[in-house]
Protein backbone atom coordinates (compact mmCIF):
# COMPACT_ATOMS: atom_id res chain seq x y z
CA UNK A 1 0.00 0.00 0.00
CA UNK A 2 2.69 2.44 1.08
CA UNK A 3 4.96 1.32 -1.74
CA UNK A 4 2.34 1.72 -4.46
CA UNK A 5 1.90 5.46 -3.98
CA UNK A 6 4.77 7.89 -4.34
CA UNK A 7 6.18 8.70 -0.89
CA UNK A 8 5.10 12.10 0.35
CA UNK A 9 8.37 13.87 1.09
CA UNK A 10 7.11 17.37 1.77
CA UNK A 11 7.75 18.64 5.31
CA UNK A 12 4.05 19.54 5.42
CA UNK A 13 3.15 15.90 5.97
CA UNK A 14 4.62 16.17 9.47
CA UNK A 15 2.36 19.07 10.44
CA UNK A 16 -0.56 16.99 11.73
CA UNK A 17 1.86 14.81 13.72
CA UNK A 18 3.62 17.84 15.26
CA UNK A 19 0.29 19.45 16.13
CA UNK A 20 -0.88 16.18 17.67
CA UNK A 21 2.31 15.86 19.71
CA UNK A 22 1.98 19.44 21.00
CA UNK A 23 -1.66 18.86 21.90
CA UNK A 24 -0.79 15.64 23.77
CA UNK A 25 2.04 17.32 25.70
CA UNK A 26 -0.25 20.16 26.73
CA UNK A 27 -3.29 17.92 27.34
CA UNK A 28 -2.99 17.76 31.16
CA UNK A 29 -3.26 21.58 31.24
CA UNK A 30 -6.60 21.38 29.47
CA UNK A 31 -8.21 18.30 31.01
CA UNK A 32 -6.78 18.50 34.52
CA UNK A 33 -5.32 15.60 36.45
CA UNK A 34 -8.44 13.66 37.28
CA UNK A 35 -10.55 11.06 35.53
CA UNK A 36 -10.00 12.45 32.03
CA UNK A 37 -6.24 12.13 32.43
CA UNK A 38 -6.75 8.55 33.64
CA UNK A 39 -8.63 7.78 30.41
CA UNK A 40 -5.89 9.39 28.37
CA UNK A 41 -3.24 7.25 30.11
CA UNK A 42 -5.22 4.07 29.44
CA UNK A 43 -5.74 5.13 25.81
CA UNK A 44 -1.99 5.75 25.44
CA UNK A 45 -1.08 2.35 26.89
CA UNK A 46 -3.55 0.71 24.52
CA UNK A 47 -2.06 2.72 21.67
CA UNK A 48 1.20 0.86 22.34
CA UNK A 49 -0.50 -2.52 22.48
CA UNK A 50 -2.79 -1.89 19.49
CA UNK A 51 0.11 -0.58 17.38
CA UNK A 52 2.11 -3.69 18.16
CA UNK A 53 -0.87 -5.82 17.12
CA UNK A 54 -1.35 -3.82 13.92
CA UNK A 55 2.16 -4.80 12.87
CA UNK A 56 0.93 -8.41 12.89
CA UNK A 57 -2.69 -8.09 11.80
CA UNK A 58 -2.27 -5.21 9.40
CA UNK A 59 1.20 -5.16 7.91
CA UNK A 60 2.11 -8.85 8.12
CA UNK A 61 -1.40 -10.21 7.54
CA UNK A 62 -1.07 -12.52 10.56
CA UNK A 63 -4.29 -12.60 12.55
CA UNK A 64 -2.99 -13.20 16.06
CA UNK A 65 -5.82 -13.83 18.50
CA UNK A 66 -3.44 -14.37 21.40
CA UNK A 67 -1.96 -10.92 21.79
CA UNK A 68 -3.22 -10.71 25.38
CA UNK A 69 -0.71 -13.47 26.20
CA UNK A 70 2.23 -11.09 25.65
CA UNK A 71 0.41 -8.19 27.28
CA UNK A 72 -0.30 -10.28 30.39
CA UNK A 73 3.16 -11.85 30.38
CA UNK A 74 4.78 -8.40 30.40
CA UNK A 75 2.55 -7.30 33.27
CA UNK A 76 3.36 -10.40 35.32
CA UNK A 77 7.12 -10.33 34.64
CA UNK A 78 7.45 -6.73 35.79
CA UNK A 79 5.12 -7.16 38.77
CA UNK A 80 6.83 -10.36 39.97
CA UNK A 81 10.31 -8.85 39.60
CA UNK A 82 9.23 -5.92 41.77
CA UNK A 83 7.34 -7.89 44.40
CA UNK A 84 9.60 -10.95 44.67
CA UNK A 85 13.06 -9.58 43.86
CA UNK A 86 12.69 -5.85 44.49
CA UNK A 87 13.64 -4.90 40.92
CA UNK A 88 12.19 -1.45 40.17
CA UNK A 89 9.85 -0.69 37.28
CA UNK A 90 12.73 0.34 34.99
CA UNK A 91 14.37 -3.06 35.19
CA UNK A 92 10.90 -4.57 35.05
CA UNK A 93 10.05 -2.82 31.79
CA UNK A 94 13.24 -4.04 30.14
CA UNK A 95 12.77 -7.62 31.37
CA UNK A 96 9.06 -7.60 30.45
CA UNK A 97 9.90 -6.52 26.91
CA UNK A 98 12.74 -9.03 26.53
CA UNK A 99 10.86 -11.98 28.03
CA UNK A 100 7.70 -11.25 26.01
CA UNK A 101 9.82 -11.02 22.86
CA UNK A 102 11.54 -14.29 23.80
CA UNK A 103 8.17 -15.96 24.36
CA UNK A 104 7.06 -14.67 20.97
CA UNK A 105 10.22 -16.14 19.45
CA UNK A 106 9.57 -19.56 20.97
CA UNK A 107 5.85 -19.59 20.14
CA UNK A 108 6.60 -18.18 16.71
CA UNK A 109 9.01 -21.03 15.98
CA UNK A 110 6.13 -23.37 16.69
CA UNK A 111 3.23 -21.63 14.96
CA UNK A 112 4.59 -19.53 12.14
CA UNK A 113 5.32 -22.63 10.08
CA UNK A 114 1.63 -23.48 10.10
CA UNK A 115 0.22 -20.03 9.25
CA UNK A 116 -3.34 -19.34 8.17
CA UNK A 117 -6.13 -20.66 10.32
CA UNK A 118 -3.90 -22.98 12.33
CA UNK A 119 -1.82 -19.97 13.34
CA UNK A 120 -4.93 -18.12 14.51
CA UNK A 121 -6.13 -21.05 16.60
CA UNK A 122 -2.72 -21.75 18.13
CA UNK A 123 -2.30 -18.15 19.26
CA UNK A 124 -5.61 -18.47 21.09
CA UNK A 125 -4.46 -21.70 22.70
CA UNK A 126 -1.21 -20.07 23.84
CA UNK A 127 -3.05 -17.22 25.59
CA UNK A 128 -5.36 -19.76 27.20
CA UNK A 129 -2.39 -21.77 28.54
CA UNK A 130 -0.87 -18.59 29.99
CA UNK A 131 -4.20 -17.83 31.66
CA UNK A 132 -4.36 -21.31 33.18
CA UNK A 133 -0.81 -20.99 34.50
CA UNK A 134 -1.55 -17.58 36.04
CA UNK A 135 -4.66 -18.99 37.72
CA UNK A 136 -3.13 -22.25 38.94
CA UNK A 137 0.48 -21.42 39.86
CA UNK A 138 -0.82 -19.94 43.11
CA UNK A 139 2.55 -20.01 44.91
CA UNK A 140 4.02 -17.67 42.34
CA UNK A 141 1.08 -15.61 41.11
CA UNK A 142 -1.43 -15.84 43.99
CA UNK A 143 -3.91 -17.18 41.40
CA UNK A 144 -7.23 -15.39 40.99
CA UNK A 145 -6.38 -13.05 43.88
CA UNK A 146 -3.84 -11.36 41.63
CA UNK A 147 -0.82 -9.33 42.69
CA UNK A 148 -1.38 -5.96 44.30
CA UNK A 149 1.08 -3.29 45.35
CA UNK A 150 2.71 -3.17 41.91
CA UNK A 151 4.09 0.31 42.58
CA UNK A 152 5.65 2.82 40.22
CA UNK A 153 9.01 4.27 41.30
CA UNK A 154 10.08 7.68 42.53
CA UNK A 155 13.12 9.09 40.75
CA UNK A 156 15.36 11.76 42.24
CA UNK A 157 16.89 14.00 39.57
CA UNK A 158 19.62 16.33 40.82
CA UNK A 159 18.46 19.94 40.56
CA UNK A 160 14.86 19.01 39.63
CA UNK A 161 13.76 17.27 42.78
CA UNK A 162 11.88 13.99 42.94
CA UNK A 163 9.57 12.74 40.21
CA UNK A 164 6.94 10.40 41.63
CA UNK A 165 5.72 8.09 38.87
CA UNK A 166 2.93 7.07 41.20
CA UNK A 167 1.20 10.32 40.21
CA UNK A 168 -0.98 10.43 37.10
CA UNK A 169 0.79 13.39 35.56
CA UNK A 170 4.28 11.82 35.72
CA UNK A 171 3.01 8.46 34.52
CA UNK A 172 1.22 10.17 31.65
CA UNK A 173 4.45 11.62 30.28
CA UNK A 174 6.15 8.25 30.75
CA UNK A 175 3.53 6.35 28.71
CA UNK A 176 3.51 9.13 26.13
CA UNK A 177 7.27 8.76 25.65
CA UNK A 178 6.96 4.97 25.44
CA UNK A 179 4.14 5.25 22.89
CA UNK A 180 6.24 7.64 20.80
CA UNK A 181 9.17 5.19 20.81
CA UNK A 182 6.88 2.29 19.93
CA UNK A 183 5.11 4.10 17.09
CA UNK A 184 8.37 5.48 15.68
CA UNK A 185 9.89 1.98 15.70
CA UNK A 186 6.91 0.41 13.99
CA UNK A 187 6.72 3.24 11.44
CA UNK A 188 10.42 2.72 10.73
CA UNK A 189 9.99 -1.04 10.31
CA UNK A 190 7.07 -0.85 7.90
CA UNK A 191 8.92 1.60 5.67
CA UNK A 192 12.12 -0.48 5.62
CA UNK A 193 12.94 -3.47 3.42
CA UNK A 194 11.50 -5.62 6.21
CA UNK A 195 8.20 -3.77 5.75
CA UNK A 196 8.28 -4.48 2.00
CA UNK A 197 8.93 -8.12 2.82
CA UNK A 198 5.92 -8.10 5.14
CA UNK A 199 3.79 -6.61 2.38
CA UNK A 200 4.94 -9.37 0.01
CA UNK A 201 4.07 -11.98 2.60
CA UNK A 202 0.65 -10.43 3.15
CA UNK A 203 -0.30 -9.92 -0.49
CA UNK A 204 1.06 -13.06 -2.09
CA UNK A 205 3.20 -15.36 -0.07
CA UNK A 206 4.19 -17.71 -2.89
CA UNK A 207 5.22 -14.87 -5.16
CA UNK A 208 7.18 -13.32 -2.29
CA UNK A 209 9.00 -16.58 -1.63
CA UNK A 210 9.75 -16.91 -5.34
CA UNK A 211 11.60 -13.59 -5.38
CA UNK A 212 13.54 -14.51 -2.26
CA UNK A 213 11.46 -13.07 0.60
CA UNK A 214 11.57 -15.57 3.45
CA UNK A 215 8.00 -15.65 4.73
CA UNK A 216 9.00 -17.40 7.93
CA UNK A 217 11.76 -14.94 8.77
CA UNK A 218 9.60 -11.88 8.14
CA UNK A 219 6.63 -13.26 10.01
CA UNK A 220 8.97 -14.04 12.91
CA UNK A 221 10.35 -10.48 12.98
CA UNK A 222 6.81 -9.05 13.10
CA UNK A 223 5.78 -11.53 15.78
CA UNK A 224 8.79 -10.83 18.02
CA UNK A 225 8.54 -7.04 17.68
CA UNK A 226 4.80 -7.30 18.36
CA UNK A 227 5.47 -9.37 21.49
CA UNK A 228 8.18 -6.94 22.63
CA UNK A 229 5.90 -3.89 22.61
CA UNK A 230 2.88 -5.79 23.94
CA UNK A 231 5.13 -6.78 26.89
CA UNK A 232 6.04 -3.15 27.51
CA UNK A 233 2.37 -2.16 27.28
CA UNK A 234 1.43 -4.87 29.78
CA UNK A 235 4.17 -3.86 32.24
CA UNK A 236 3.09 -0.20 32.04
CA UNK A 237 -0.54 -1.20 32.55
CA UNK A 238 0.37 -3.26 35.63
CA UNK A 239 2.38 -0.47 37.23
CA UNK A 240 -0.28 2.09 36.46
CA UNK A 241 -3.19 0.04 37.83
CA UNK A 242 -0.83 -1.22 40.60
CA UNK A 243 -2.59 -4.56 40.22
CA UNK A 244 -2.09 -7.60 37.98
CA UNK A 245 -4.50 -10.53 37.67
CA UNK A 246 -5.00 -13.56 35.39
CA UNK A 247 -7.82 -11.63 33.68
CA UNK A 248 -5.14 -9.84 31.66
CA UNK A 249 -4.75 -13.03 29.60
CA UNK A 250 -8.44 -13.26 28.74
CA UNK A 251 -9.72 -13.37 25.18
CA UNK A 252 -11.70 -10.19 25.90
CA UNK A 253 -8.44 -8.20 26.12
CA UNK A 254 -7.38 -9.59 22.76
CA UNK A 255 -10.73 -8.68 21.22
CA UNK A 256 -10.50 -5.16 22.67
CA UNK A 257 -7.08 -4.71 21.05
CA UNK A 258 -8.34 -6.22 17.83
CA UNK A 259 -11.37 -3.94 17.69
CA UNK A 260 -9.04 -0.95 18.16
CA UNK A 261 -6.80 -2.08 15.32
CA UNK A 262 -9.53 -3.08 12.89
CA UNK A 263 -11.84 -0.14 13.38
CA UNK A 264 -9.01 2.36 13.72
CA UNK A 265 -7.39 1.10 10.54
CA UNK A 266 -5.13 -1.92 10.39
CA UNK A 267 -2.69 -0.77 7.75
CA UNK A 268 -1.94 2.70 8.95
CA UNK A 269 0.21 4.15 11.71
CA UNK A 270 -2.58 6.49 12.82
CA UNK A 271 -5.24 3.74 12.79
CA UNK A 272 -4.40 1.98 16.08
CA UNK A 273 -4.00 5.38 17.78
CA UNK A 274 -7.46 6.45 16.64
CA UNK A 275 -8.83 3.05 17.61
CA UNK A 276 -7.24 3.09 21.07
CA UNK A 277 -8.61 6.55 21.85
CA UNK A 278 -12.09 5.88 20.45
CA UNK A 279 -12.43 2.53 22.20
CA UNK A 280 -11.19 3.83 25.53
CA UNK A 281 -13.50 6.83 25.45
CA UNK A 282 -16.52 5.25 23.74
CA UNK A 283 -17.18 2.58 26.40
CA UNK A 284 -17.11 5.40 28.97
CA UNK A 285 -19.50 7.46 26.88
CA UNK A 286 -21.78 4.42 26.59
CA UNK A 287 -21.76 3.98 30.33
CA UNK A 288 -25.33 5.15 30.64
CA UNK A 289 -26.21 1.96 28.81
CA UNK A 290 -23.82 -0.42 30.60
CA UNK A 291 -25.78 -3.55 29.75
CA UNK A 292 -26.01 -2.70 26.07
CA UNK A 293 -22.43 -1.43 25.81
CA UNK A 294 -20.83 -4.59 24.47
CA UNK A 295 -23.81 -5.33 22.24
CA UNK A 296 -23.20 -1.96 20.63
CA UNK A 297 -19.43 -2.62 20.36
CA UNK A 298 -20.00 -6.01 18.71
CA UNK A 299 -22.44 -4.44 16.26
CA UNK A 300 -20.01 -1.62 15.45
CA UNK A 301 -17.26 -4.18 14.79
CA UNK A 302 -19.48 -6.17 12.43
CA UNK A 303 -20.66 -3.11 10.53
CA UNK A 304 -17.12 -1.76 10.30
CA UNK A 305 -15.88 -5.00 8.73
CA UNK A 306 -18.68 -4.91 6.18
CA UNK A 307 -18.57 -1.24 5.18
CA UNK A 308 -15.18 0.11 6.28
CA UNK A 309 -12.65 -2.73 5.96
CA UNK A 310 -9.67 -0.39 6.26
CA UNK A 311 -10.91 1.40 9.32
CA UNK A 312 -11.53 4.98 10.35
CA UNK A 313 -8.04 6.01 9.26
CA UNK A 314 -8.97 5.17 5.64
CA UNK A 315 -11.59 7.95 5.65
CA UNK A 316 -8.82 10.48 6.11
CA UNK A 317 -6.41 8.79 3.70
CA UNK A 318 -9.07 8.52 1.02
CA UNK A 319 -9.77 12.23 1.25
CA UNK A 320 -6.10 13.03 1.10
CA UNK A 321 -5.47 10.75 -1.85
CA UNK A 322 -8.56 11.47 -3.91
CA UNK A 323 -7.37 14.88 -5.25
CA UNK A 324 -3.92 13.47 -6.01
CA UNK A 325 -5.45 10.59 -7.96
CA UNK A 326 -7.67 13.01 -9.86
CA UNK A 327 -4.60 15.06 -10.83
CA UNK A 328 -2.78 11.93 -11.92
CA UNK A 329 -5.57 11.07 -14.35
Amino acid at each position, binding site marked *: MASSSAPDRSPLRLVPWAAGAAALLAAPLAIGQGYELHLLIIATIFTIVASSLSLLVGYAGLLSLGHAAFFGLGAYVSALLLLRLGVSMWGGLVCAAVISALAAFLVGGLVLK*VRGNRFIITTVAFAEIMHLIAVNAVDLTRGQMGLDGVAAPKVAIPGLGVIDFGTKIAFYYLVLAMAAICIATIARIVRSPIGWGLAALRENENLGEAVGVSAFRHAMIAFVVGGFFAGIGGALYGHYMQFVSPDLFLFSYTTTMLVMVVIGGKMSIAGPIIGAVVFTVLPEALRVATTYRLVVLGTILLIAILVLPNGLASLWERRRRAPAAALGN
Partner: protein
Amino acid sequence: MIDLLPQFLFNGLLIGASYALIAVGLTMIFGIMNIANFAHGQLYMLGGCLGYFLTARLGLHYLLTVPLVVLVVMALGLLLERTIFRRLRYEPAMSSVLATVGLAILLENAARVLWGPQPEPIATGFSQMPIQLGPVFTTEARVFAVVTTFGALLLVYLFLNRSLLGTAMRATFQQSEAAALVGISIDKVHAATFALGAGLAALGGVLLGAIFFVYPTMGTTATLKAFIVVILGGLGSIGGSVVGGLILGLAESLGTLVSSAYKDAIGFVLVILILLYRPDGLFKRS
Protein backbone atom coordinates in the same frame (compact mmCIF):
# COMPACT_ATOMS: atom_id res chain seq x y z
CA MET B 1 -9.33 -45.65 42.27
CA ILE B 2 -9.45 -48.31 39.57
CA ASP B 3 -13.11 -49.14 40.31
CA LEU B 4 -13.94 -45.51 39.48
CA LEU B 5 -12.44 -45.92 36.02
CA PRO B 6 -15.66 -46.98 34.20
CA GLN B 7 -17.43 -43.96 35.71
CA PHE B 8 -14.76 -41.58 34.43
CA LEU B 9 -14.80 -43.29 31.03
CA PHE B 10 -18.57 -42.83 30.78
CA ASN B 11 -18.38 -39.17 31.80
CA GLY B 12 -15.60 -38.64 29.29
CA LEU B 13 -17.69 -40.29 26.59
CA LEU B 14 -20.63 -37.99 27.36
CA ILE B 15 -18.55 -34.79 27.26
CA GLY B 16 -16.56 -36.04 24.28
CA ALA B 17 -19.71 -36.80 22.27
CA SER B 18 -20.94 -33.25 22.74
CA TYR B 19 -17.50 -31.86 21.84
CA ALA B 20 -17.81 -33.92 18.67
CA LEU B 21 -21.26 -32.47 17.96
CA ILE B 22 -19.97 -28.91 18.21
CA ALA B 23 -16.74 -29.65 16.37
CA VAL B 24 -18.40 -31.35 13.39
CA GLY B 25 -20.24 -28.12 12.55
CA LEU B 26 -17.12 -26.06 13.09
CA THR B 27 -15.02 -28.26 10.84
CA MET B 28 -17.70 -28.25 8.09
CA ILE B 29 -17.91 -24.45 8.15
CA PHE B 30 -14.13 -24.38 8.03
CA GLY B 31 -13.75 -26.97 5.29
CA ILE B 32 -16.53 -25.79 3.01
CA MET B 33 -16.63 -22.03 3.64
CA ASN B 34 -13.00 -21.51 4.77
CA ILE B 35 -14.17 -19.60 7.83
CA ALA B 36 -12.64 -20.17 11.28
CA ASN B 37 -15.88 -19.49 13.15
CA PHE B 38 -15.03 -17.88 16.48
CA ALA B 39 -18.75 -17.41 17.16
CA HIS B 40 -19.39 -21.16 17.08
CA GLY B 41 -19.41 -21.48 20.87
CA GLN B 42 -21.89 -18.62 21.03
CA LEU B 43 -24.28 -20.60 18.82
CA TYR B 44 -23.87 -23.47 21.29
CA MET B 45 -24.55 -21.01 24.14
CA LEU B 46 -27.64 -19.76 22.31
CA GLY B 47 -28.92 -23.34 22.16
CA GLY B 48 -28.50 -23.67 25.92
CA CYS B 49 -29.97 -20.27 26.81
CA LEU B 50 -32.94 -20.67 24.45
CA GLY B 51 -33.51 -24.09 26.01
CA TYR B 52 -33.61 -22.47 29.44
CA PHE B 53 -35.93 -19.70 28.23
CA LEU B 54 -38.41 -22.04 26.54
CA THR B 55 -38.57 -24.61 29.35
CA ALA B 56 -38.08 -22.66 32.57
CA ARG B 57 -39.74 -19.38 31.59
CA LEU B 58 -42.34 -20.38 29.00
CA GLY B 59 -42.99 -23.84 30.41
CA LEU B 60 -42.55 -25.71 27.13
CA HIS B 61 -41.86 -29.45 27.38
CA TYR B 62 -38.17 -30.31 27.06
CA LEU B 63 -38.71 -32.88 24.32
CA LEU B 64 -40.45 -30.22 22.20
CA THR B 65 -37.87 -27.61 23.15
CA VAL B 66 -34.91 -29.57 21.76
CA PRO B 67 -36.06 -29.64 18.09
CA LEU B 68 -37.49 -26.11 18.34
CA VAL B 69 -34.19 -24.68 19.60
CA VAL B 70 -32.29 -26.43 16.82
CA LEU B 71 -34.65 -25.03 14.18
CA VAL B 72 -34.50 -21.48 15.56
CA VAL B 73 -30.71 -21.44 15.64
CA MET B 74 -30.55 -22.99 12.15
CA ALA B 75 -32.75 -20.15 10.91
CA LEU B 76 -30.41 -17.69 12.60
CA GLY B 77 -27.50 -19.45 10.86
CA LEU B 78 -29.21 -18.95 7.48
CA LEU B 79 -29.75 -15.29 8.26
CA LEU B 80 -26.12 -14.77 9.32
CA GLU B 81 -24.77 -16.48 6.21
CA ARG B 82 -27.02 -14.35 4.03
CA THR B 83 -26.36 -10.99 5.70
CA ILE B 84 -22.70 -11.29 6.69
CA PHE B 85 -20.66 -14.17 5.34
CA ARG B 86 -21.99 -14.11 1.77
CA ARG B 87 -20.81 -10.51 1.44
CA LEU B 88 -17.36 -11.41 2.74
CA ARG B 89 -16.87 -14.55 0.65
CA TYR B 90 -14.42 -12.99 -1.79
CA GLU B 91 -12.74 -10.72 0.77
CA PRO B 92 -9.49 -11.84 2.47
CA ALA B 93 -10.10 -14.74 4.90
CA MET B 94 -9.25 -12.45 7.79
CA SER B 95 -12.40 -10.39 7.22
CA SER B 96 -14.75 -13.28 7.89
CA VAL B 97 -12.75 -14.39 10.93
CA LEU B 98 -12.95 -10.86 12.32
CA ALA B 99 -16.68 -10.81 11.56
CA THR B 100 -17.12 -13.99 13.61
CA VAL B 101 -15.26 -12.33 16.49
CA GLY B 102 -17.65 -9.37 16.30
CA LEU B 103 -20.58 -11.75 16.10
CA ALA B 104 -19.33 -13.63 19.18
CA ILE B 105 -19.20 -10.39 21.21
CA LEU B 106 -22.64 -9.41 19.95
CA LEU B 107 -24.36 -12.75 20.65
CA GLU B 108 -22.78 -13.24 24.07
CA ASN B 109 -23.80 -9.82 25.30
CA ALA B 110 -27.23 -9.92 23.69
CA ALA B 111 -27.80 -13.13 25.67
CA ARG B 112 -26.59 -11.40 28.82
CA VAL B 113 -29.02 -8.54 28.25
CA LEU B 114 -31.91 -10.93 27.53
CA TRP B 115 -31.37 -13.57 30.21
CA GLY B 116 -28.98 -12.12 32.79
CA PRO B 117 -25.45 -13.29 33.61
CA GLN B 118 -26.23 -15.94 36.25
CA PRO B 119 -26.08 -19.68 35.52
CA GLU B 120 -29.55 -21.21 35.12
CA PRO B 121 -30.71 -24.82 34.79
CA ILE B 122 -32.87 -26.10 31.92
CA ALA B 123 -36.12 -27.53 33.25
CA THR B 124 -36.12 -30.97 31.65
CA GLY B 125 -38.71 -32.76 33.72
CA PHE B 126 -36.32 -35.74 33.91
CA SER B 127 -35.95 -37.52 37.23
CA GLN B 128 -32.90 -36.51 39.26
CA MET B 129 -32.57 -40.04 40.65
CA PRO B 130 -29.35 -41.81 39.67
CA ILE B 131 -29.66 -44.86 37.43
CA GLN B 132 -27.18 -47.68 37.70
CA LEU B 133 -25.86 -49.19 34.47
CA GLY B 134 -23.39 -51.89 35.49
CA PRO B 135 -20.52 -50.15 37.29
CA VAL B 136 -21.64 -46.69 36.17
CA PHE B 137 -24.03 -44.29 37.87
CA THR B 138 -25.83 -41.81 35.66
CA THR B 139 -29.08 -39.84 35.24
CA GLU B 140 -31.90 -39.83 32.69
CA ALA B 141 -30.73 -36.46 31.29
CA ARG B 142 -27.25 -37.87 30.64
CA VAL B 143 -28.53 -40.98 28.93
CA PHE B 144 -30.84 -38.83 26.80
CA ALA B 145 -27.91 -36.56 25.85
CA VAL B 146 -25.61 -39.45 24.84
CA VAL B 147 -28.28 -41.21 22.79
CA THR B 148 -29.45 -38.01 21.06
CA THR B 149 -25.88 -36.95 20.29
CA PHE B 150 -24.93 -40.19 18.64
CA GLY B 151 -28.30 -40.22 16.83
CA ALA B 152 -27.65 -36.73 15.48
CA LEU B 153 -24.13 -37.65 14.36
CA LEU B 154 -25.54 -40.68 12.52
CA LEU B 155 -28.15 -38.48 10.81
CA VAL B 156 -25.45 -36.02 9.72
CA TYR B 157 -23.45 -38.92 8.32
CA LEU B 158 -26.46 -40.21 6.36
CA PHE B 159 -27.34 -36.71 5.18
CA LEU B 160 -23.84 -36.09 3.85
CA ASN B 161 -23.56 -39.46 2.15
CA ARG B 162 -27.09 -40.20 0.93
CA SER B 163 -28.79 -36.88 0.14
CA LEU B 164 -28.25 -34.71 -2.94
CA LEU B 165 -27.52 -31.59 -0.89
CA GLY B 166 -25.09 -33.53 1.31
CA THR B 167 -23.27 -34.80 -1.76
CA ALA B 168 -23.13 -31.24 -3.12
CA MET B 169 -21.62 -30.15 0.18
CA ARG B 170 -18.93 -32.83 0.02
CA ALA B 171 -18.18 -31.89 -3.57
CA THR B 172 -17.82 -28.22 -2.64
CA PHE B 173 -15.55 -29.23 0.19
CA GLN B 174 -13.25 -31.09 -2.20
CA GLN B 175 -13.12 -28.51 -4.99
CA SER B 176 -15.46 -25.58 -4.90
CA GLU B 177 -14.72 -24.26 -8.41
CA ALA B 178 -15.26 -27.66 -9.96
CA ALA B 179 -18.45 -28.06 -7.96
CA ALA B 180 -19.71 -24.72 -9.23
CA LEU B 181 -18.80 -25.75 -12.79
CA VAL B 182 -21.01 -28.84 -12.67
CA GLY B 183 -23.93 -26.67 -11.57
CA ILE B 184 -23.85 -26.86 -7.80
CA SER B 185 -25.13 -23.66 -6.27
CA ILE B 186 -22.36 -22.48 -3.97
CA ASP B 187 -24.77 -20.02 -2.32
CA LYS B 188 -27.08 -22.87 -1.39
CA VAL B 189 -24.26 -25.10 -0.15
CA HIS B 190 -22.77 -22.35 2.03
CA ALA B 191 -26.18 -21.46 3.49
CA ALA B 192 -26.90 -25.12 4.26
CA THR B 193 -23.45 -25.60 5.78
CA PHE B 194 -23.70 -22.67 8.14
CA ALA B 195 -27.27 -23.53 9.13
CA LEU B 196 -26.36 -27.17 9.79
CA GLY B 197 -23.26 -26.22 11.78
CA ALA B 198 -25.24 -23.72 13.84
CA GLY B 199 -28.00 -26.27 14.47
CA LEU B 200 -25.54 -28.94 15.67
CA ALA B 201 -23.87 -26.47 18.03
CA ALA B 202 -27.27 -25.45 19.41
CA LEU B 203 -28.20 -29.10 19.89
CA GLY B 204 -25.02 -29.55 21.93
CA GLY B 205 -26.00 -26.54 24.06
CA VAL B 206 -29.55 -27.64 24.77
CA LEU B 207 -28.39 -31.19 25.62
CA LEU B 208 -25.45 -30.29 27.87
CA GLY B 209 -27.46 -27.44 29.40
CA ALA B 210 -29.85 -30.07 30.73
CA ILE B 211 -26.96 -31.65 32.66
CA PHE B 212 -24.95 -28.61 33.71
CA PHE B 213 -26.05 -24.99 33.81
CA VAL B 214 -26.41 -22.48 30.99
CA TYR B 215 -24.97 -18.95 31.11
CA PRO B 216 -24.09 -16.32 28.47
CA THR B 217 -20.29 -16.74 28.73
CA MET B 218 -20.36 -20.53 28.28
CA GLY B 219 -19.62 -20.09 24.57
CA THR B 220 -16.02 -18.90 24.86
CA THR B 221 -14.69 -22.13 26.35
CA ALA B 222 -16.82 -24.14 23.94
CA THR B 223 -15.29 -22.35 20.94
CA LEU B 224 -11.78 -23.07 22.19
CA LYS B 225 -12.57 -26.71 22.94
CA ALA B 226 -14.16 -27.16 19.54
CA PHE B 227 -11.08 -25.73 17.84
CA ILE B 228 -8.86 -28.09 19.82
CA VAL B 229 -10.97 -31.01 18.65
CA VAL B 230 -10.85 -29.81 15.07
CA ILE B 231 -7.05 -29.56 15.15
CA LEU B 232 -6.77 -33.01 16.76
CA GLY B 233 -8.92 -34.51 14.04
CA GLY B 234 -7.38 -32.50 11.20
CA LEU B 235 -8.93 -29.25 9.96
CA GLY B 236 -11.92 -29.97 7.75
CA SER B 237 -12.14 -33.69 8.53
CA ILE B 238 -15.60 -34.65 9.78
CA GLY B 239 -14.78 -38.17 10.91
CA GLY B 240 -11.61 -36.82 12.50
CA SER B 241 -13.52 -34.34 14.60
CA VAL B 242 -15.86 -37.03 15.94
CA VAL B 243 -12.90 -39.13 17.06
CA GLY B 244 -11.04 -36.00 18.20
CA GLY B 245 -14.01 -34.98 20.35
CA LEU B 246 -14.16 -38.38 22.02
CA ILE B 247 -10.39 -38.34 22.63
CA LEU B 248 -10.50 -34.89 24.22
CA GLY B 249 -13.51 -35.77 26.39
CA LEU B 250 -11.85 -38.97 27.62
CA ALA B 251 -8.46 -37.28 28.11
CA GLU B 252 -10.01 -34.53 30.20
CA SER B 253 -12.11 -36.93 32.23
CA LEU B 254 -9.13 -39.16 32.98
CA GLY B 255 -6.97 -36.07 33.49
CA THR B 256 -9.24 -35.12 36.40
CA LEU B 257 -7.84 -38.17 38.16
CA VAL B 258 -4.36 -36.63 37.93
CA SER B 259 -4.89 -32.89 38.40
CA SER B 260 -8.26 -31.17 38.29
CA ALA B 261 -6.65 -27.72 38.25
CA TYR B 262 -4.88 -28.33 34.96
CA LYS B 263 -7.61 -30.48 33.38
CA ASP B 264 -8.44 -27.72 30.89
CA ALA B 265 -4.77 -27.41 29.93
CA ILE B 266 -4.68 -30.98 28.55
CA GLY B 267 -6.38 -29.97 25.33
CA PHE B 268 -4.10 -27.03 24.69
CA VAL B 269 -0.99 -29.07 25.34
CA LEU B 270 -2.32 -31.77 22.98
CA VAL B 271 -2.81 -29.11 20.31
CA ILE B 272 0.75 -27.90 20.59
CA LEU B 273 2.10 -31.46 20.41
CA ILE B 274 -0.09 -32.19 17.39
CA LEU B 275 1.07 -29.06 15.61
CA LEU B 276 4.67 -30.00 16.30
CA TYR B 277 4.54 -33.63 15.25
CA ARG B 278 1.34 -34.18 13.22
CA PRO B 279 0.31 -30.80 11.80
CA ASP B 280 -2.43 -32.36 9.66
CA GLY B 281 -4.15 -34.00 12.61
CA LEU B 282 -3.92 -37.39 14.21
CA PHE B 283 -5.47 -39.42 11.42
CA LYS B 284 -3.98 -38.00 8.26
CA ARG B 285 -2.04 -40.56 6.28
CA SER B 286 1.12 -39.01 4.92
